[in-house]
């Protein structure tokens, strides 16, 4: 459905991914038709409000959606040409933690409280590499040093570490087998600002070292600006704007993206009022027809309410899912 066909196969290709949840009788379409592309070593920022389906996308790439209520109902995810959804569970397990790994949002609960920190790292190494127990321990100690934790603390338990230190352990686990793709699900949200910077720098150094591609999920535009190459804005399970960082930051085309930028206090101008986007994100089980943003969009026209809204190319070449790009561009100017 994307306009131009890239010459070489992209490193990671997601086509029309759709995921539905079932809870007491109601069907919730968390992700309905998401297509993304990521080059090797590059970073893609996935930005949107909570509940827009960001984490679901990451989890469906790794196929670790909690199977009680969630089901992938369509689309495909190709990693270096191989469609992950076609793989058997055993093959998928070889990829998890080895080719693709994930960092989670809340470090406080992301580590197993009854297992030593070192063992948790050694476990992922053991799963994906041959060798004796002491090799894995050595590797785990290396990773601890690499993320700035003294190796002596190998045998300590998660409750003996601070939030920031725990996130470092999670990162050590994720990067222990030098994965090709790193899915970072809001890695710094639960940390305070000073620790946030250290963690981001740590991720950046390690990625440069192993040339790891990263899908960064966040709702913090500052983090996107600092680390991402491309940006995709997601709203109610659909990508509504997709382009390079410069294109999105300099010329946001979709009213929602503009609204997002409007909600950030900019250091330069002294705005009396921030412009929050009025209204609330739509109920996932009965999404509005046509453009899902039209109830909250100041530029909504009759056309927006009906029919499917496709991605359009904007002036500077990035894509946007809005039929009134021109009128919006004129007024925002």
């Amino acid at each position, binding site marked *: 459905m994307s306009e131009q066909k890239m010459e070489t196969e992209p490193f990671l290709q997601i086509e029309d991914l759709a995921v539905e949840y079932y809870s007491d009788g109601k069907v919730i379409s968390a992700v309905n038709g998401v297509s993304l592309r990521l080059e090797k070593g590059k970073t893609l920022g996935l930005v949107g409000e909570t509940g827009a389906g960001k984490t679901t996308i990451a*989890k469906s790439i*790794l196929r*670790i959606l*909690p199977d*009680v209520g969630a089901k992938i109902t369509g689309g495909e995810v190709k990693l270096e040409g191989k469609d992950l959804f076609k793989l058997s*569970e055993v093959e998928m*397990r*070889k*990829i*998890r*933690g*080895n080719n693709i*790994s*994930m960092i*989670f949002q*809340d470090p406080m*609960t*992301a*580590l*197993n*409280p*009854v*297992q030593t920190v070192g063992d948790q790292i050694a*476990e*992922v190494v053991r*799963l*994906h590499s041959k060798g004796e127990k002491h090799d894995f321990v050595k590797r785990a100690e290396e990773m601890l040093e690499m993320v700035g934790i003294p190796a002596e603390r190998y045998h300590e*338990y998660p*409750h*003996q570490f601070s939030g920031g230190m725990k996130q470092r352990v*999670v990162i050590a*686990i*994720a990067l222990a087998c030098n994965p090709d793709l790193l899915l970072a699900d809001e890695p710094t949200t639960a940390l305070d600002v000073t620790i946030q910077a250290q963690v981001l720098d740590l991720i950046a150094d390690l990625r440069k070292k192993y040339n790891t591609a990263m899908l960064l999920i966040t709702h913090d535009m500052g983090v996107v600006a600092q680390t991402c190459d491309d940006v995709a804005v997601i709203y109610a399970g659909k990508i509504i704007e997709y382009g390079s960082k410069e294109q999105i930051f300099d010329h946001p085309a979709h009213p929602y993206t503009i609204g997002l930028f409007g909600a950030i206090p900019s250091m330069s101008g002294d705005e009396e009022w921030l412009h929050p986007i009025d209204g609330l994100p739509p109920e996932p089980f009965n999404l509005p027809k046509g453009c899902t943003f039209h109830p909250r969009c100041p530029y909504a026209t009759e056309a927006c309410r009906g029919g499917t809204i496709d991605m359009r190319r904007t002036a500077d070449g990035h894509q946007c899912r809005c039929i009134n790009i021109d009128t919006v561009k004129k007024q925002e100017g």
Partner: protein
Amino acid sequence: MARYVLKRLLWMIPIALGVAVLVFTLMCFCPGDPAEIILGSTATQENLAAKREELGLNDPYIIRLGTFLSDTFIHFDLGESWITGASVKEAIAERLPRTLLLSIIQLIISFGIGIPLGVMAAVNQNKWQDNLCMALALIGISIPNFWLALLLVILFSVKLNLLPAMGIGGIEYYILPALAGCTNGIAAGARQTRSSMLDVIRSDYITTARAKGVPEWQVIVKHGLKNGLIPIITVMGTHFGKMLGGTMVIETIFAIPGMGQYIINGVNNRDYQVVQVGSIFLAIAFSFCMLAVDLLYAAVDPRIRARYAKGGKRRAKKA
């Protein structure tokens, strides 16, 4: 850790003393005169009076309590049963292991069957396995164990002639009594495991484990179950008391000469010595098992182990 265990062991002495005083006082208020029971209905008044004097029943309460406590706790002379003259120490040495063996087998079966059932129910929640497990658990809790004991005897000993219906001997003698006694335990274990596993499965470190490529069953058992064990152990600990009590009834049905029958006969025959000393030993054995359960906490959860190591001031929350 050793400090904590020592503290708990020292703590058992006042508990044993407390139990001794409590049961002694209770037995004093028991109607019925032991002398008449011993000598039977054909005894003359002089016989009875002599017997009462010999048993010291005429002394005031405080003196009798004093002699009893000094005999038991200082001289470790556990005396003889008033009715049969059999030494209490030997009787307990013979019977306590049987009752404890039966209770511990029941505990192990309850853990052994209860937990996997609970995990299976939690893993495929709301599927047929879940409903079946929970229905089984509900039935298990509802059936009184002595009634089930009778039915099991009919089914397995009489109809199928597989297992001995009564008496003591090899391990096969303990299967039916243990089975009858532990259905409540299995049911409680399964229900508790299911509810704590449901909490655990939704937590983040399970997703982390899955993201690491850990096989599903390892995720559930190694990561999930190990974290869910604390509330399960708590329920099992409290349930062990009920099981030990239940064993007393099961013993009467399966003609197992254990502590239960011993104490019940003691109470019926107003055999004060047997009931008092029997209760003390049952209480001590019970406290040892509860201590073992508490130590299980520490073994399973490092956070508690840390608290114990730090002088163990706050004992693990029992609620």
